């Protein structure tokens, strides 16, 4: 085998320019896919991080039916205290969970005594929420970086629109579950930046204050956000939790709880999917480039060497060896292109990290793109390029191995 490699590689070196051109094409293709995967991956993970760590959490538990009408934040679909207790008990059984945060969410009116607008309120336990969505404090642009009783964090949108400052007194009015209306005064404790998504009007207050506004006697919970120790175990934990909680049935025999990952809660998931689909198509393009360029040179190589093929066949080289000889050439082209592509990608990604490319996403500005090459990706994409090279060489190689020696020798 090694001796066939020697001959194959020498044959490649015989047409230096052509070999160089083909393997550079493969190298550029491999490099492009790797850099794209690294960059889009970084972008995706920054985005997912932003979304899960500043608001959603990794997964959430609701009462079944709540998510379908999540826009109106229906109080009638809250989890009862008993149900919430069940959720907490389940969460504590799952060791992969780092933190969780029960929330009361409602829609209400927000007034500075002169103007009124609507607001979406998140009533939370400050410690639990910050543990679950650790980027929350960083979103508080003015005021104290926590949520105290009697205070409210209002979204930038409202602060600007109604010209409200930290320390001002405001009123939050909400329709309660039974249809009556209640209001409560708050002091603005801080102004919070929104995350991209349906968060433009989200304000925060202490969960006890929320209960008071809604005149709840017993705490009812709209959602429980959950943070995992390892984001990579998202689906596993989701399934585990779903399995444990789906045993709980209501009177109609239907499951009470609804467990979903961030993917099924945020429209950004579609963006993330798009990125994956684009990466996939770019990989297909790479395969096409490799196939076409290798097939092209190998067809040429076979055609140019017909007499040589006739000669080695006459000398007793069996068809399988002739086949391997040409496959080895395709393989070597693929492997050298892939290797060069990997090296180029490493250099480019390194440079990108040194230069620190920043980008803006929604209201988040100056986020640093930090692409990183994954070894899995490098192996996988190199394998694709090498396998495609061998496949592309197969047809010309078969043709060479099936040549009749007399005809090959007569060829001029």
């Amino acid at each position: 085998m090694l001796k066939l490699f020697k001959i194959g590689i020498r044959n490649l070196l015989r047409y230096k320019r052509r070999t160089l051109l083909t393997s550079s094409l493969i190298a550029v293709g491999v490099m492009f896919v790797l850099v794209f995967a690294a960059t889009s991956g970084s972008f995706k993970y920054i985005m997912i991080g932003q979304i899960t760590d500043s608001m959603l959490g990794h997964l959430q538990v609701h009462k079944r039916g709540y998510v379908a009408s999540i826009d109106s934040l229906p109080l009638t679909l809250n989890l009862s205290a008993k149900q919430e207790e069940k959720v907490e008990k389940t969460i504590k059984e799952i060791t992969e969970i780092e933190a969780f945060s029960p929330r009361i969410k409602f829609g209400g009116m927000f007034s500075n005594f002169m103007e009124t607008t609507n607001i979406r309120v998140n009533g939370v336990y400050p410690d639990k929420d910050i543990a679950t969505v650790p980027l929350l404090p960083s979103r508080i642009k003015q005021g104290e970086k926590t949520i105290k009783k009697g205070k409210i964090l209002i979204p930038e949108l409202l602060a600007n629109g109604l010209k409200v400052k930290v320390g001002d007194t405001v009123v939050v009015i909400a329709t309660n579950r039974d249809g009556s209306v209640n209001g409560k005064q708050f002091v603005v404790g801080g102004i919070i930046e929104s995350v991209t998504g349906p968060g433009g009007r989200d304000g925060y207050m202490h969960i006890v204050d929320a209960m008071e506004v809604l005149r709840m006697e017993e705490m009812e919970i709209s959602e429980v956000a959950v943070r995992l120790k390892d984001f990579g175990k998202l689906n596993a934990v989701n399934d585990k939790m779903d399995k444990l909680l789906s045993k709980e049935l209501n009177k109609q025999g239907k499951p009470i709880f609804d467990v979903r990952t961030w993917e099924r809660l945020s429209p950004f998931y579609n963006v993330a999917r798009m990125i994956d689909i684009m990466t996939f198509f770019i990989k297909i393009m790479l395969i096409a480039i490799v196939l076409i360029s290798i097939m092209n040179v190998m067809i040429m190589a076979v055609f140019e060497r017909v007499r040589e093929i006739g000669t080695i066949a006459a000398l007793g080289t069996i068809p399988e060896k002739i086949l391997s000889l040409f496959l080895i050439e395709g393989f070597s082209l693929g492997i050298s292109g892939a290797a060069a592509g990997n090296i180029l990608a490493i250099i480019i990604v390194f440079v990108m990290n040194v230069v620190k490319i920043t980008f803006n996403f929604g209201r988040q500005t100056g986020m640093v793109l930090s692409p990183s090459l994954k070894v899995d990706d490098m192996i996988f994409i190199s394998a694709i390029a090498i396998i495609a090279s061998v496949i592309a060489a197969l047809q010309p190689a078969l043709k060479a191995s099936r040549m009749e020696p007399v005809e090959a020798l007569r060829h001029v």
Partner: protein
Amino acid sequence: MSLVSAENLTKIYNVGEIEIEALKSVSFNVQSASFVSFVGPSGSGKTTLLNLIGCLDKPTSGSLKVADVDTSALTRKEAAVFRGKNLGFIFQDFNLIPVLSVYENVEYPLLIVHNSPAEERKKRITSLLETVGMTDQRDKYPDQISGGQKQRVAIARALVTNPRLVLADEPTANLDSKTALMVIDIMRKMKEEFGVTFIFSTHDQRVVNEVEAVYTLQDGILVEDAVREGGTNA
């Protein structure tokens, strides 16, 4: 004992609608350790015949045995194995492998076809290069040596596997007189030293004068033969 025995050997080429009968019922025997040549004008069927004997092509009809094997029954792969084991080839255009050095060209059949051990290869190649007088050129590549030198390398390559039969289709056609005679001389020495059978095709009188037996082909028919020694009429 006959190394090659042909009986009513016929080869017809089909070119579109036209049938070209390149060999018409040819019969002959070639004994082991002989030095024979097929001669005849261009188009008389010399190459066709050598290709059949060399197991590179199959007869249309008739029987052909080489080393007691009915070669027309072999598959492509079996034929390759048979050639590798029993035959050596010398071509008019030398057909050295351009990416291999002189030494490596001679090594090729041992290395790729026979998988011989390194020590044995080295001994055999060194001695053959010595015999053909190419030892000091062993590291050169085919495009760095002359035609006569190439043919000497080709002779070494044809003999390196100790074949029973070497087929040489017009081996001197591209060589000048002096070189041609030297090449023929080397081949004869090989025959004497190793008992290898050589079958040539040629229309080179210089070669004809050197061989033991001459078969003359004309329009695919064996017309006369001048047997000196070794060859017999069938």
